[in-house]
Each structure stands twice: as C-alpha cells, then as structure tokens.
C-alpha cells in the first residue's frame, strides 16, 4: 500500500470514528454533571464536579423504575415468544415442501420490508375497540410483527445449514418429523436462536412508536416512552435525561458489542439471502 493511500484510509476512519463516538461520549460526560452544569455555557468537556445524582434520580423515580421493569418484561416476553414461533415457522420453510410455500415466503418477506409505523392508526382503533389498549400482553403481541418476519428468515437459513442426514437418522429410528425437530434440531440450533434472541431484544427494547400510541398509561409505560414523557412533563433537565439515555442504551450496546461478529453474520443472513 502506498503511504498516501494508507494515510487517506486512516484519515477517513479516524474522522468517522470521531463522528460516531463524540455524541455518545458527550452525553456520557454530561450525565455525570449536576443539572446547572449540564447546560452551562461554555460547555465543559469533563464534569467539573462529577456526581452520580442523575443516575440516582432516574433509578429512584417511581415512574421511571416501573417503566424500566415494563421494558424488561415486554422485551424478554416478546423475545421468547418470537423465537419460539419463528423457530416453528422457519423449520416448516426449511424442511417441508408444500403448496403455497413460495407465496408465503414472498408475503412474509414483503411484510418484513414494510415498516410497522404505517399500521399504528388501524392498530390503535382495533385495540381500542377490543379493550386492549394499555395492556402489556397486547404490547408483546404487537411487537411480534416487528420481529417475526426477520426471525423466520434467519432461522430458516440457519436450519438449512444443518445437514439433513441428522434428522433422517432419527426418522429411520421411528421418530416423527416434529419429534426429530425437538430432539435433534433444537439442541444444535442454540447459536441460531441466540442471534435471533439478541436481535429480537434489540428491536423490542428500542421500540417507541407502538408503545407511545398503544400503551401510554404510567403503569404500563415502557422506558423509551417514559423518557419521552419526561421531556414534556418537566422542563428538560438534561442531567437527568442524559443519565436516562445511558441507562437505555447500555443493554443493547453491551449485547451488540459482545456478539458483534455473530450479529453481522446473522443480519446479513436474514437480510441478504431472504
């Protein structure tokens, strides 16, 4: 590599690395400043009097704590449900030939492409009419539409990488296909389930539009919505808010960094191969 080329490459990387990390670091630094200092001008890069007060405020405010628990419950429940449901569906696509298979694949792929937000008005009216607004249960069900299509493709592709001979041995031994799935495929597909679970968690934890419309009563509010209410409720206390931001992004960023390589593979498997 030429020196010029090399320096150009490192210049591009360094620049975008700065663009990527600077906002995060700035928010991180602000979260340790007392409220007046957080919006002080000129801004101080590092907190002059570092404090944990903002985090203590967020983690002791009853409304915010409830919403954190709601977020955790909704995310875990919808992750579990979607992985289970998508594993069954993905297995059907990977191992069976049946009428309408290609049509169904196309429909599900098409649905995955179409963002859920354009559904919020009919969903709101529908749930209002059956009395399921402000219900954690309904929230978990509606979150499925965000994740099931992606998970089905991810797991379908994963199952297809498993040699058929494994199940055939079990089938010869007299197992039904369903039993073969449960006893042979499920145990060795844990890495695939893990990718699906992490992506599901990320989508559920971060989702804002569905819960802001479908469940905005304090007792069923999720964290992203509670933070949003927080800015309209109080005048914006940026110290508190930046602490809230960091609490909201820690779980997903840690998961993603930890499983980064698997994620990239999983995402491209799901998105590209379809």
């Amino acid at each position, binding site marked *: 590599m030429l020196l010029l080329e090399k320096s150009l490459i*490192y210049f*591009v*990387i360094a620049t*975008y*690395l700065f*663009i*990527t990390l600077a*906002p*995060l670091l*700035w*928010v991180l630094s602000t979260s340790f400043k007392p409220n007046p200092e957080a919006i002080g*001008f000129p*801004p101080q890069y590092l907190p002059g009097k570092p404090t944990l007060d903002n985090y203590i405020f967020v983690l002791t405010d009853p409304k915010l704590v409830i919403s954190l628990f709601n977020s955790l419950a909704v995310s875990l429940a919808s992750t579990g449900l979607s992985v289970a*449901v998508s594993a069954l*569906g993905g*297995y*059907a696509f990977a191992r069976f030939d*049946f009428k309408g298979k290609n049509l*169904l694949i196309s429909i*599900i*792929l*098409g*649905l995955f*492409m*179409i963002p*859920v*937000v*354009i*559904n919020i*008005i*009919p*969903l*709101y*009216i529908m749930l209002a009419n059956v009395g399921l607004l402000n219900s954690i249960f309904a929230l978990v*069900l509606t979150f*499925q*539409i965000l994740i*099931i*299509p992606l998970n089905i493709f991810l797991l379908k592709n994963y199952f297809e990488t498993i040699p058929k001979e494994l199940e055939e041995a079990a089938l010869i031994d007299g197992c039904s*296909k369903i039993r073969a799935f449960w006893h042979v495929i499920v145990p060795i597909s844990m890495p695939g389930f893990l990718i699906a679970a992490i992506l599901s968690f*990320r989508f559920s934890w*971060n989702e*804002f*539009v569905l819960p802001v419309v479908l469940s905005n009563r304090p007792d069923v509010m999720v964290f*992203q919505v509670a*933070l*949003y209410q927080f800015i309209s409720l109080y005048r914006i206390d*940026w110290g508190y*808010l930046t602490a809230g*931001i960091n609490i*909201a*992004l820690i779980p997903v*960023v840690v998961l993603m*960094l930890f499983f*980064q390589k698997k*994620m*990239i593979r999983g995402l*491209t498997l799901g*998105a*590209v191969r379809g």
Partner: protein
Amino acid sequence: MLEQKAGMLQPYLLLAPALAILTAFLLFPLAWNVYLSLHDVSLTTILSDWKYVGLKNFANLIRDSDFHMSLFVSLIFVGGSVALQFFVGMVLAVVLNQQIKGSNTLRALFIIPWTISAVITGFSFKFIFNDSFGIMNYGLGQLGLAPVSWLSDPGTVVWTLVVANMWHGTPFTVIFLTAGLFSINPVVYEAARIDGATKIKGFFYITLPLLRPFVIINLILITMWSVNFFDLILVMTNGGPLFSSTTSSLFMYRQAFEFGLLSKGAAVGFLLIATNLVLAYSYMKLLRSQDK
C-alpha cells in the same frame, strides 16, 4: 393414508402461530386502513358508528397546504438521508475492507449508532444542536463563526434531522455493503492488478458492477425506512417549528394523535402504504432476478 394426510398438514400447523399473529396485527390492520380512510373516525367517535364519507378524507388532504408541505419536507429528508447514508456507508465499507489492523473492532464501534434507538439518538442530537447551550454552536463560536439556529430555523431544521438520521442509519449500509464485498472473490482483483489496473479503476470497473445487486437493494431499503421513519423527528422537533419539519409519516401521526383526526391520518397512511408496496415489490423483483 390418514397418517400421510396428517403429514401434509404439518408445515401449515408449524406456521400457524406465526401466520395468526401476522394476520391479526399486521395484514388485517394494513387492509382495514383502507376502510378507515373512507369513513369519519376521530378520537371521540372511536367506539361509535363511523359515517361513510367516501373520498372526503383524500379530498381534504389534497387541499391541505400542510400536507403539501409535508411531501416537500419528506422529499428533502428522504433524499438527503439516502444520499448521505449511502455515500458515507459505501466509503466506510470499502475502506474497512482494505487489509487494515483491527477492522473487526472498528466495525463493532461503527455499528453502535444503529443499535441504539431512534428516541435516544433524537435526544442526544437535540442536546448537541441546542441553539443556546449546544456544543455545536459552541464549536462554531470557537472557530469564529456565527451560531446557527439548528432546530428553530425552518430552513435549517430538516438538514439537522438529516445529519442525525445519517448518524443513526449509516451503520446499516456499512454492514450490508460489507456483506456484499465479502461475496466478491478476491481473485478478480488479483487479475485486474496483473493487468495493471489502479485501485480506483478497480473499484469502478470491478467492485461496483459486482456489487450492483447489493447496492440496489440497499438503496430500496434505506429509502423505505426513511420514508416511514418519524420517531427521531418527533423527539427532536415534534415536526416544528409549525410544520417545517413534519414529514408525511409524521403528518400522519400528528393528524391522528395530536389533532385526533384518525381517518385523515389513515388516508395519509394509505398513501404511505402504497409507496411502501411499490418499494417492497421492486425489492422482491430484484432479489428474485439476483437469485437466478
């Protein structure tokens, strides 16, 4: 015989839970939206009988200058976001694909903005671009430049949103095009180098043509997502000042949940669904032709 029949049903049974959920919460609402857009539904009449009004909601939209404005705002927001995300994403994907040390660690760091939510991105940039105490204006001041009204000037606000959306969305393009670059056999570069082609030439004459299917699909996906994306905008500006940063998808949300005009929102939703279906259809067409 009976057993065979049961065997044929198996795949449908396996798919039943997924299809039931998708039908109830995705397909049905998608179709029902058409019905809603032809009736008069508001937040106050949501539980009573709705009056059939034909195309009145659509007629109202055509006359609504705020809606016209939203189309224009969408055009800038989508055009700007797609152009920036694609250009920056492509440059980064190619650069990271050169043999450099720590490229995996770098990819992991670059991916962070995409893993965090739009709401969180919105808050962070609202803070950074604050007119009075934001660090952007402080930086401009240090350089001897006048402060900019990033979020309160109707002419600037959309571009500020485009920047925030670029930060949030670019990593997807980086990952997607990286997957595309991985699929290219290094042998073709070797051959080109022996023939004396420069790296730049190699990019335009070899990489880009081979990457074409990935590029097109990537463009369709980020276009579709930008068309519908509004949580970031909701948090940063709430569509304001007035309607100057209200994209069509945010216009839909505001009509429905700010002004309570659910069926007017549904009419906008119908237009958005049509846009999305066209985009999704072209995606599938291209994906199929790529398979062959």
